[in-house]
């Protein structure tokens, strides 16, 4: 019997123009939580896809309990009791929780589904591991936290004992992250082995036993977490020293750049307002952060500010201009930039090339068109410049179809586009979502630089750390209302957490200016 349950030995996987995995060895012990750390595009997902049978490696072998196995497709992986929670959940939206869990392994009798036993097993597992789910709820009606629990239950239902978590915390609130960590520890204690893919160093320090670091397709090393620290891991991952704290001088707020008064946004299904009487102001040269747990009206607020939806009432000003009823284009022309929350839905036309996406907001200006004809030379020149300045990496440069780019580089492209518009007001929603530390550091610097350049920045983020380290002022949203305003320098996570969860609130404030 081998010491390792799964061994991936000298795996090499090539794609056109890229060696995604170059001679990588990863060994997973029974009952351990093994983190796989690396930047976007380092080859983590490819390696896991090899293990899961989605890709066949050019070289190397996989051993299970010391014996060589061949994994041709996810069914083989499942037979070897390997299960995976994907970063983007693989759930059928219009099916119930229970149906999703049994999908593919459902029991039938005379052609009819037999769900009774399955339901019992799901409920047992759910109770045993503290994975609260409503088996009859439809996936489209439940939050991402519960969706993730459904994904975990799917693995348990199939009696998997090698569990792969691909960036599981990206979509969770701080509380949910803590819960998940606890659940993972329980699994490990029971003898299940966990592969935990992440680029968040704190989570590795908190939960993992060992960590393997990948960089640019190569294996940099495997360490015991107890013997290392965040700085060393970051350096291994990025290849240089990383500065975590954001250096910024105190802000010198100027005139109001974005003013919101008594903004109300309704909800189609409920009488309750999504955004309820929100008033605030962002001045030139300051970063105002909006903290809050997902779903407390931040998205709707941003949609109303950027013109994607119409508010029920209230007024929005950019500088002196009342833009409440202006079109999106008019807002853009007045200097409003928007890094959207959902980069695939709003941020990019995925089937367009990188160059085409980089001019999505200004293709109609004199710079890029003449008499209605696009100026391709200008477009490519502009694109090459942004690629260089923002270090956007892709297979074929400007001509890369953005769909084939990694998430982090897609995000960089959006940030590059929006910052290059020289906005007066920048609304940045989750600007570093899914990015690695190197990129986060860079984008944070850019946002601070925009502030120092007398731009007004409204930062909306679910990552409390991000809000706290960047913001000059922090507003906390809870159930559509702004329940607190705190100075960025003096805020503590504990204090903000109480406001975010609705446990505490300040007296209703008057808006300044």
């Amino acid at each position: 019997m081998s010491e390792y349950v799964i061994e991936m030995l000298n795996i090499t996987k090539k794609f056109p123009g890229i060696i995604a995995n170059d001679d990588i060895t990863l060994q997973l012990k029974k009952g351990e939580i093994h983190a796989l750390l690396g930047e976007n595009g380092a080859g983590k997902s490819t390696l896991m896809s090899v293990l899961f049978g989605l890709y066949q490696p050019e070289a190397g072998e996989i051993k299970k309990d010391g014996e060589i196995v061949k994994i041709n497709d996810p069914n083989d992986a499942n037979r070897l009791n390997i299960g995976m929670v994907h970063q983007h959940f693989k759930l059928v939206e219009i099916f119930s929780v229970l149906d999703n869990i049994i999908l593919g392994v459902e029991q039938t009798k005379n052609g009819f589904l037999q769900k009774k036993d399955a339901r019992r097993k799901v409920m047992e597992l759910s109770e045993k591991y503290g994975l609260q789910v409503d088996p009859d709820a439809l996936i489209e009606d439940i939050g991402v936290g519960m969706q993730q629990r459904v994904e975990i239950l799917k693995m348990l239902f199939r009696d998997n004992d090698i569990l792969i978590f691909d960036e599981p915390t990206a979509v969770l609130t701080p509380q949910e992250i803590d819960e998940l960590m606890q659940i993972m520890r329980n699994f490990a204690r029971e003898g299940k082995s966990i592969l935990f893919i992440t680029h968040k160093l704190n989570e590795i320090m908190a939960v993992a036993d060992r960590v393997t670091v990948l960089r640019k397709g190569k294996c940099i090393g495997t360490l015991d977490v107890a013997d290392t620290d965040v700085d060393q891991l970051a350096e291994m991952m990025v290849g240089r020293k990383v500065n975590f704290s954001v250096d910024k001088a105190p802000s010198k707020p100027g005139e109001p750049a974005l003013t919101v008064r008594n903004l109300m946004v309704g909800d189609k299904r409920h009488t309750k307002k999504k955004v309820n009487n929100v008033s605030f102001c962002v001045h030139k040269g300051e970063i105002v952060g909006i903290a809050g747990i997902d779903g407390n009206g931040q998205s709707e607020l941003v949609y109303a500010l950027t013109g994607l939806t119409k508010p029920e009432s209230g007024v929005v000003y950019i500088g002196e201009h009342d833009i409440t009823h202006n079109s999106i284009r008019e807002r853009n022309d007045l200097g409003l930039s928007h890094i959207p929350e959902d980069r695939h839905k709003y941020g990019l036309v995925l089937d367009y090339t990188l160059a085409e996406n980089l001019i999505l907001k200004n293709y109609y200006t004199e710079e890029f068109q003449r008499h209605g004809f696009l100026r391709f030379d200008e477009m490519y020149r502009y694109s090459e410049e942004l690629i260089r300045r923002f270090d956007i990496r892709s297979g074929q440069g400007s001509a890369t179809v953005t769909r084939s780019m990694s998430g982090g580089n897609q995000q960089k492209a959006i940030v590059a586009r929006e910052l290059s518009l020289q906005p007066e007001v920048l609304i940045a929603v989750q600007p570093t979502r899914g990015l690695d530390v190197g990129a986060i550091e860079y984008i944070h610097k850019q946002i601070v630089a925009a502030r120092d350049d007398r731009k007004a920045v409204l930062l909306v983020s679910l990552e409390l750390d991000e809000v706290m380290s960047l913001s000059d002022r922090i507003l906390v949203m809870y159930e559509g209302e702004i329940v607190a305003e705190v100075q960025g320098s003096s805020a503590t996570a504990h204090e903000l957490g109480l406001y975010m969860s609705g446990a505490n609130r300040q007296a209703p404030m008057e808006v300044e200016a």
Partner: protein
Amino acid sequence: MRNRRNHTGLINGTASLISIALGLIFGFLLLLVFNASFAVSGFNNLMTTGFASSEKLAKVFYQSAPLLMTGLSVAFAFKTGLFNIGATGQYTLGAFFALMGVVQFRLPWWMGLILGMVGGALLGLIPGVCKALFNVNEVITSIMFNWIALFAVNLSINNMPLMLANAWGAINKDRTAALTSSKFMAYNPNATIPKAGLDKLLGSNYMNIGVFIAILVAVIIWIVMNRTTFGYELKACGYNRHASNYAGINAKRNIILSMTISGALAGIGGGLYYLSGTAQYTLVKSLLGMGFNGIPVALLASSNPIGTIFSALFVSYIQVGGDALQPEYSREIIDIIIAAIIYLSAFSLLMRGWIAKRLLRNQKDNTNMGDEAPAEPANEAESGVKAQ
């Protein structure tokens, strides 16, 4: 950066050629099944008739003009993320408007074509408006408007005595006036599309400049789609309506415009065919195949306007070749065989994915650029139908 475009073009072209070959093999099998003794000679006829004589070649050109327009109509809509299944209705209304122009108003042929364009545009506008403002699926609306157009046109023609053939000395009243009859020529000598000597060159009455007009339109559409900000907006809306909205593009306006233009293209096709002087619109109760044949023409060309020129010529060529299968094969069987060939040919979409995969696999690992793994291969599938 130009390389990538060439690359895509190569893949699309090869895919279409392989599909065509598959379609032809299947067609040959059908010939064998229906009448084995004539299969070889029949297949030979099918493949060579179009080039066998200049007269047949003229017929290929003649039929390809309206096909090219309906194909362009469907391709244009595809490119902008819409499925215009109403090309046949727009084609019919376009034909009616064009004929009305030259018959009722004694307008010259080119005014007739413009009217045809207007007719098609009107019928494209309605599904566009329904889609943009009320989010009604354009497929449903345009299917219904196919029938509305057909019967409205039949009704109108029946109530316009001048339009019918019997007003001009012919006996039948189930079809429109023959524009080349001597009586009609005296009434409106400019009603038919000029032949510019091409009829003499190819020795066929069918030949006129229609196919060149259609090719010109295809080139214009290609330029609009690939070189202008308008095309950039339309394609952006087609690929991702949300992102277009976010970028300040008026997606609703673009959906309406896109359907209208698509309809206009089909309308021109109707004009091109029925102003040739060699075709008469017949009052029947079934939708015209010319509109539906635009769909395989567009698919075969991967919705590329320039590709549409060639796929329209191919489909037309096969149809002319099919006519030569008589009398060994009955009319219906010929239709089945042609349909099967066209149908398989339109599989180029499937082929494309397959070839792209093969090409990727065989490509050498030139490590000139980037160190990225391709993200989420699973997402590739969803873009399949949108027809690049």
